[in-house]
């Protein structure tokens, strides 16, 4: 009776120690993972910022004014005059018909 009681106590003691240790390790793991998560979140934020800056850059390069200036001055493009335009009508059967 007395001996089996001691054995039970030892087992319980062991269980408590194990539990305590595993609590410590899992908490440690959780914190490590959390730090990683935090870093990833930070990265997300930074990437969002970069995305915004890239959008801004793109729209600055692609302003209609800049595109128009390059088209006209550098590439020597111009709108077709009325004589240079032809209309082609697509008939319902898929054939095209010159309407000029």
């Amino acid at each position, binding site marked *: 009776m007395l001996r089996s009681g001691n054995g039970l106590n030892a087992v319980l003691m062991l269980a408590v120690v194990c539990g305590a240790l595993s609590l410590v390790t899992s908490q440690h793991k959780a914190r490590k993972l959390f*730090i990683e998560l*935090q870093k990833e979140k930070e990265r997300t934020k930074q990437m969002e*910022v970069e995305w*915004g800056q890239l959008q801004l850059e793109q*729209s*600055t390069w692609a*302003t*209609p004014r800049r595109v128009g200036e390059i088209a006209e001055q550098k590439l020597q493009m111009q709108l077709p005059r*009325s004589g240079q335009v032809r209309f082609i009508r697509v008939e319902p059967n898929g054939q095209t018909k010159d309407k000029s």
Partner: protein
Amino acid sequence: MNYAVGAHQNITAKLPGWRATALFAILLAGFVGLLGRGVYLQGIQDEFLQKKGDARYSRVVEVSAHRGMITDRNGKPLAVSTPVESVWASPQDVKADRSQVRKLAQALGMDAEEVRGRMFNPSRDFVYLKRQLPPDQVEKVVSLNIPGVSLQREYRRYYPAGEEAAQILGFTGQDDNGQEGLELALQEQLAGKPGGQRVIKDRRGDIVEDIGSLREPKHGSDVRLSIDSGIQYLAYREIKNAVVSHHARSGSVVVLDPNSGEILALANYPSFNPNNRINVSSQAMRNRAITDLFEPGSTMKPFTVATAIEAGKVRPATVIGTENGRFMVGGRMIHDQHPAATMSVAQIIQKSSNVGAAKIALSLKRETLWEGLSASGFGQQTGCNFPGEASGVLRDAKSWQKIEQATMSYGHGMSVNLLQLARAYTVFATDGMLKPVSLLRLETPPEGKQVYSEHTVRAMRDMLEMAVMAEGTAPMAQIAGYRVAGKTGTAHKLENGRYVDRYVSSFVGFAPVSRPRLVVAVMIDDPSNGGYYGGQVAAPVFSRVTGAALHTLNVPNDAPLNNVIVPEAAVVREEV
């Protein structure tokens, strides 16, 4: 000696019983006291210690929220917030030698003496050296690593479209709150609310555990405008050219989609660069198309005529005696630029006859005329919710004298803003429906109000198309490949209550007539380089903006490409 005997006697002597009891009682009282205190601190008054404990390791960190983006109708950014760093110093902690200060000043692009003065200003705890630096400059500052000089993250707003859409968008202040224009009107939606988070930090300041979120950060939501940045650019370019070449004071253009009431473009000149607002005059910041009023002049005539047709008083072919261009009303003479003995109603619109319009107006009851104009949106808010919108003046019919009823018919004695005028013309561009206008992109068009019957509108469209043809006042509004309809306006300006020989030239029209997609209104204030007629100054702007916008929108042609017939110059004159 019998010390030993005495000592022995003492040891065995019995202590008095009360001493043990007293000691026990004291110890017990001590324990009860401690226990009570413990229970008190742990159970009842536990906040204080809890707080002290938390303060050792838990921190509240702010989670920043950014301001939403404003985009055009196709998602192109018009206003974007991006983080920038501001450099600040705490003069008490600054440790820097001469060469470091010089390098810092160089990195900041500032004068070395000024930087020194600020950095070592003993009366301040905190001083900004330079706000809102671009990233490459920030790196240089960081690499100097001067103690007492730190960075602070702030948001700065950029406007890629620059001056083209400056007045509509408005701008934000130093703290990223809207101050003008849509930035102000849409503040609620755009503004983010920073959140708070309680965390546990370790010795190195890294966050090790997230205890709980106090407030979720609320990022500002993005707003999609009805503006089409391509058309906006065209509109701004053309109005700028026109104002400059006509030596005018200012000019505005409004481009509307008549079917939904969306504003596709709204440009004013002079304008300003919202990315760099040093020395910007308040004149340049005004969104004239919405906040400024002017006397519309002849652009009002179609509404007079439409009201008369609707009331059954006239038909387009009805002939009106136009008195050879001179007509007395209430002691005042009304003139015509193209005098004739008689004109049909259609010709009155085409030739912009004041006498004809006045006679038609006088044939109506003044309440009927007022109702026709008011139902077309004059004297009313347009529904765009732009801060500082002026709703225009359309006086109550009861106060009209006979002469006022006559002048009102050709747009004198009342005032409108350009957006209102453009909106009113959507009535002719649709089947007589007036809708609220919107600066935001709409998924479904709003409910409109029927102003004139379809029959009246169709008749008006034919007459307005005639005004743009070779015999009308606005042949310069024609567009190759599209049928166009519209009306010119030229009005004397009012200065200190008197009409002076300065003018507001305008043109409002729509295209393509077969199925209108765009209503475009152009207003040029005080052109002073010779020409001032609406057909001369404003109509060409209309033609270029509308033509280019129709191409941009891929609208199929409804006329052959050789449809433009340019007549002699005198035709564009109209009475003002």
